[in-house]
């Protein structure tokens, strides 16, 4: 029996060899069935029992010292599975239970209440004429009147329908264009600055042109919405693609993805967080553009939307209608954010483990 693995042997090849780094602490392992253990390397339990009392589990089991970094440190598949399973459970986080956080609901509500109280207090001081600065109760009363007339529901429904349809068509156009620009360098160099420029150009600037081209029709409204939303969605998608770790593309190449597979299976999902903030901004732009278009383009076959209501309030010099319309436009914006974008974004970030430590 060769004794080169026995600790009692004083040869330079023994386990206490000075070449073995002291940082790697020796592990004590039973030697039951190593992967491919040559029979000759086994040593008797008695020869090391005085060195290592912890290893003597049973009289039949042979033990020896193993330098983990240098040789096999586990004894076969079952042992390895057990060790790994133990390490996995040690290294995995315990599942934290999510609770309903009431401050998330109560704080924003409290903020709104405080603002309304300040508003009412200012009106009560009587510094301005009541018809120029109506109080919250005057506006609430106007709300009731508009609701009873049915014009409030009509305005909200008309605008919301247009805003959502315009936004969805914008998404359908901007997504392939954005992917193409992000993936094809010459196209991006050619059109990138133009698209960034379009984002800066206020979409209201397109209203006169749209009226000349399409007259007072829905086409005018949609055109203005597209010009507002499409560039910001494209830009969001491009910046999302720019932030993809380069390694993801390498993985795609190594896995043998075609150009289309790369775009759909890897680039698009990887860019999703950036794309989503582009979509949020795109929605904000389409909603704003819609209001601008509705204020300016009134009459013809264009129906009665929130912008039209705002314009009507100005024509009638009725500040309560103006305030009602502004609050409704704001409320729709907040509701879409809270009910549509916030849950999607939260889910997206949570699944990727990007939410811990944020102030959301």
């Amino acid at each position, binding site marked *: 029996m060769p004794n*080169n*693995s026995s600790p009692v042997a004083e*040869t*330079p*090849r*023994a*386990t206490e*060899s000075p*070449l*073995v*780094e002291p940082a*790697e602490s020796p592990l004590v392992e039973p030697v039951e069935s*190593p*992967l*491919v*253990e*040559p029979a000759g*390397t086994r040593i008797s339990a008695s020869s090391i029992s005085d060195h290592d009392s912890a290893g003597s589990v049973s009289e039949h089991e042979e033990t020896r*010292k*193993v*330098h*983990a*970094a*240098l*040789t*096999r*440190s*586990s004894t076969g*598949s079952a042992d*390895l*599975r057990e*060790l*790994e*399973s133990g*390490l*996995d459970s040690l*290294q*995995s*986080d315990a599942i934290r239970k999510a609770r309903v956080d009431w401050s998330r609901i109560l704080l924003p509500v409290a903020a709104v209440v405080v603002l309304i109280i300040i508003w009412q207090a200012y009106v009560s001081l009587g510094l301005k004429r009541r018809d120029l600065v109506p109080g919250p109760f005057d506006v609430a009363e106007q709300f009731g009147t508009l609701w009873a007339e049915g014009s409030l529901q009509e305005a909200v429904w008309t605008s919301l329908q247009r805003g959502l349809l315009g936004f969805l068509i914008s998404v359908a156009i901007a997504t392939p264009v954005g992917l193409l620009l992000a993936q094809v360098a010459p196209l991006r160099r050619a059109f990138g600055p133009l698209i960034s420029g379009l984002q800066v150009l206020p979409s209201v600037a397109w209203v006169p042109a749209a009226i000349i081209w399409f007259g007072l029709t829905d086409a005018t409204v949609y055109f203005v919405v597209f010009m507002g939303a499409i560039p910001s969605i494209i830009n969001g998608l491009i910046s999302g693609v720019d932030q993809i*770790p380069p*390694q*993801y593309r*390498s*993985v*795609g*190449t*190594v*896995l*043998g*993805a075609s150009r289309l*597979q790369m775009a759909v*299976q*890897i680039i698009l*999902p*990887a860019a*999703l967080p950036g794309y989503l903030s582009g979509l949020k901004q795109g929605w904000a732009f389409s909603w704003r553009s819609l209001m601008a278009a509705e204020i300016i383009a009134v009459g013809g076959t264009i129906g009665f939307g929130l912008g039209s209501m705002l314009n009507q309030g100005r024509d009638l010099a009725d500040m309560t209608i103006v305030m009602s319309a502004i609050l409704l436009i704001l409320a729709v914006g907040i509701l879409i954010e809270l009910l549509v974008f916030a849950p999607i974004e939260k889910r997206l970030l949570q*699944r*990727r*483990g990007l939410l811990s430590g944020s102030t959301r």
Partner: protein
Amino acid sequence: MPVVLENLGKRFGDGAPVLDDVNATIGKGEFVALLGASGCGKSTLLNIMAGLEVPTSGALEVPSDGAAFMFQDSALFPWLTARENVELALKLRGVGKAERRTKAGELLDLVHLAEAGDKRPHELSGGMRQRVALARSLAQDRQLLLMDEPFAALDAITRDLLHDELERIWKETGRTIVFVTHNVREAVRLGQRVLLLSSRPGRVVQEWNVTEEHRTDAGLAGQLTGVITARLREEIRRHAK
């Protein structure tokens, strides 16, 4: 011979050559550790073998179906679960939907992660992520598996276990593995053959055979580690000013 490198050279732009006159032959089913200090072009060499970069001179013979690749960080896609990550590799290979699911399950079981299939990468520990990445690269079903310092970022306990794990899987699957590392002990622990690459330019300067005795005898392994370390330091000293 799955891999033959002949007088391979690589330079980026007009810079000094990163690789110069690299010659190596790697046999089918062999486990070769490619060892070198930082900046010796080991990763570049691996990228060339994977087809991610092209050599500027010399000839290269690799299997026609390409190679599987494992990166230093797991590079798992965070929007997919562990199983879906493995399934994506099968999907891009053209495996049918029903077969993908069973195959992915088998591969996860091979790396002892059958229960973690529905977890997302951020819920897994570093060692678990690397095992999923290993399962994904096995899903590619290529004879040649290239590994670029896959365990460098792991803690020592996990790394020791993954060494055993990789050796087991190599024996079970019969892959040809080229394993890049800057860790001499890791190279001796895993490789049947250790190739030492010089730095700037990278070139194979010496190679050692690691026998089965080195796998079980820490003294023998330690001795070889010492010899290789000495030779590696000699290479590094050449660059002292």
